[in-house]
């Protein structure tokens, strides 16, 4: 068993290229706190991320009590589009964030951006569009989502998946709030159209 884990770790070490500073892993406290090697930790992170993505998608079923599947579907698509566009513009166009393109970090990021984050944004939209006048709940959900996202990005930086260039977590906070707002406005349009149809 140890041999299999060792081989798998070596396989991933070969895959995981050193960053520009020549370091394979950032020397942060986290590596000394956990009894796992960096790459093994990364694999665990990927597995956890996959599992959370599946749970997140399954959680959408609960929304069906109040809104139609077609609306859930459009909430999700809008959230994925906005999250992807934000990432493309920040990382690819403006080059404010350098992303580790090795396979495990890459798919970890994609799973988060296209799996967990859109579902969380969808839940945020759901609360804002269906809970009339419950402002504390709505604002609370948005704050929780923002804090969670900033925490995940901080974790990505800690793991060496993201390297900030003229970027910081303050900008990340502003960006996620902008993404939430755009997604909410687009969703509000669809919500109004759907309600118009339902009332006919």
């Amino acid at each position, binding site marked *: 068993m140890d041999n299999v884990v060792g081989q798998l770790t070596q396989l991933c070490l070969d895959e995981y290229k050193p960053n520009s500073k020549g370091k394979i892993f950032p020397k942060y406290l986290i590596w000394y706190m956990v009894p796992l090697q960096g790459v093994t930790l990364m694999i665990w992170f990927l597995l956890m991320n996959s599992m959370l993505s599946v749970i997140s998608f399954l959680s959408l079923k609960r929304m069906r009590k109040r809104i139609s599947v077609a609306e859930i579907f459009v909430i999700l698509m*809008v959230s994925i*589009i906005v999250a992807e566009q934000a990432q493309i*513009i920040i990382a690819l166009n403006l080059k404010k964030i350098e992303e580790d393109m090795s*396979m495990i970090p890459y798919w970890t990021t994609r799973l988060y951006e296209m799996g967990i984050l859109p579902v969380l944004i969808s839940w945020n939209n759901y609360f804002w569009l269906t809970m009339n006048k419950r402002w504390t709940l709505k604002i609370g959900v948005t704050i929780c989502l923002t804090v969670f996202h900033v925490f995940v990005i901080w974790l990505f930086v800690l793991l060496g998946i993201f390297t900030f260039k003229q970027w910081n977590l303050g900008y990340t906070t502003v960006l996620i709030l902008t993404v939430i707002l755009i997604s909410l406005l687009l969703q509000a349009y669809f919500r109004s159209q759907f309600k118009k149809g339902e009332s*006919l």
Partner: protein
Amino acid sequence: MILLDPPQKFDANEWFILGVIVFMLIVILKLPKTFTPLFVSYLTVFNFFLSTSVDFIIAAPPFDLYDVADQPKHEIMDIVIYLILYPQSAYVAMWIYNRWEWRGGRLFMFLLAISVINVGLEYIAILFNLYRYKGWNLLYSGPVYFAVWFLNVWLLHFLKRTQEKTGIPFFVQTASRSR
């Protein structure tokens, strides 16, 4: 700080995009109205979602299999393609499908035919320098288009079922027929 770059040079590929958009718009306006604005919005979001997700994974690093328009970066013309050109094509294809509603073998032939036409159009687009392959192959596009059109047909049926269940109007003719 420019979020989305304009075209480096307004040349053949930009004129090609605009030409096709105008042509498709004329075709769409000539077609009898079957879909409501809500369906058009939904179809636009769906195809924007499909195209941007596929391109985000295979056309951006680390895979980076092809470039769209003038530069490897995301630019304004990319958004024009995602938001106008692809949904226009989907509109026309779904209009044809909705008119005849083929099943089984005929549906397969329809998907195959429309995918072959798309591959042909992509070949013309390459001649206009709209796509630059960096490891991609025109033949790979065939199955991708087939899957995309299959998903569009699935969406059409899904929205029809939604209209029957909830009354949310996606189709003009179906709504009038049911009354």
